[in-house]
């Protein structure tokens, strides 16, 4: 089936609608292979571009092969190449990783990081996240409170993928908007949903995605050890929405949390999408108050 993708508007809600509609059309298709036609896309915001790139992994859950058609897209072709769409930029265990190409750009590419817990994967992940942080810091000339906050957010939220998704890879990208003074960061995995993690840990009273998201953002840990805290999501969300006046979106399974609103969606994301809208250079912000 040929599935033509149209350009979503920039608001997070519009991008979510585009993602839902895309998943629905793939679900409706009876074909073994679907072609995602992105030739009419002129610009992609990071939430939609990262979700679009991960659709091929979502197709695997349906036993489908997903391919992309961007022929004749002269306007956006070089941009898609620059953001390494759809596979993402990554680092091997023997080669370095740098984002020097993006020094003066208003975006970071799709970056694929290892999500396994072994020493090599952890080391590569640390290098990748370190380089992302350095580039954001340089590009936006952030003060140390912000640098600490950004490191806190990307480390906690990617660590959730490492600890809970059951996947070997995760994805992150970013876009900067100097005129409006904010940045968008999107983090995605295509593995176990938040509900799936509770179910795996036999927390049986949590039986739907909305309940699972509610428990997770209220700090209920799925971890086995009583002394471990499930505060990554709650602190990150508080920091963004309360401390920085930004926006926090979480889409996991059929559940969506957008700002303070929970909605059960008609389309399922196998895994979790996090979209963060972070204003920068807010005065008198102290990240440690939210940790």
């Amino acid at each position, binding site marked *: 089936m040929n599935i033509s993708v149209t350009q979503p508007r920039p608001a997070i809600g519009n991008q979510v609608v585009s993602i839902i509609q895309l998943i629905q059309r793939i679900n409706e298709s009876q074909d073994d292979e679907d072609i995602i036609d992105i030739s009419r896309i002129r610009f992609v915001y990071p939430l939609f571009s990262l979700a679009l790139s991960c659709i091929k992994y979502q197709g695997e859950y349906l036993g489908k092969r997903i391919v992309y058609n961007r022929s004749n897209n002269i306007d956006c072709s070089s941009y898609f190449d620059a953001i390494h769409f759809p596979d993402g930029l990554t680092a091997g265990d023997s080669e370095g990783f740098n984002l020097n190409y993006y020094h003066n750009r208003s975006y970071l590419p799709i970056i694929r990081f290892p999500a396994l817990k072994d020493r090599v994967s952890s080391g590569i992940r640390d290098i990748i996240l370190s380089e992302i942080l350095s580039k954001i810091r340089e590009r936006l000339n952030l003060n140390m409170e912000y640098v600490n906050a950004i490191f806190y957010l990307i480390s*906690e939220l990617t*660590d959730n993928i490492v600890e809970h998704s059951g996947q070997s890879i995760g994805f992150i990208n970013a876009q900067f908007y100097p005129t409006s003074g904010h940045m968008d960061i999107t983090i995605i995995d295509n593995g176990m949903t938040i509900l799936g993690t509770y179910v795996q840990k036999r927390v049986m009273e949590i039986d739907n995605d*909305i309940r699972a998201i509610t428990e997770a953002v209220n700090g209920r840990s799925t971890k086995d050890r009583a002394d471990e805290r499930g505060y990554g999501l709650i*602190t990150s969300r508080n920091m963004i929405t309360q401390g920085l006046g930004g926006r926090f979106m979480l889409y996991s399974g059929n559940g969506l949390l957008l700002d303070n*609103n929970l909605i059960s969606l008609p389309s399922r994301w196998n895994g979790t999408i996090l979209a963060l809208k972070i204003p920068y250079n807010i005065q008198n912000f102290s990240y440690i108050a939210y940790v």
Partner: protein
Amino acid sequence: MTIIIKPDVDKISSRASIRSYFVQSFSNVDKIIIDLSSVVFISRSAIHELSIIIDEFRSKNIEAEAEIRSKEVIKLSHVVSLNKRMTNHNKLNLRRYRSTEDIYKYLETV
């Protein structure tokens, strides 16, 4: 025997990163120094994991301590050691819709 564990990075982003430095055998070890003097950023999860690891060593009568120089890492370590309860400041609203179209209409406004 005293051993020194020194991560070779200046940023540690995950629990798994910290755990990966402790996969070796610690038989015949009676003191472990975790040298974080070159670490300038560490995630809350990682510093929390480190505190658990140190407690585990101490419960086995192995002396363990972390050397930290970064002020930010010291500050974060202190906050984690307080083990304070976090509360969700934002009350969640469950929105119910009759149809997919109604969901779209709402999402297109936010």
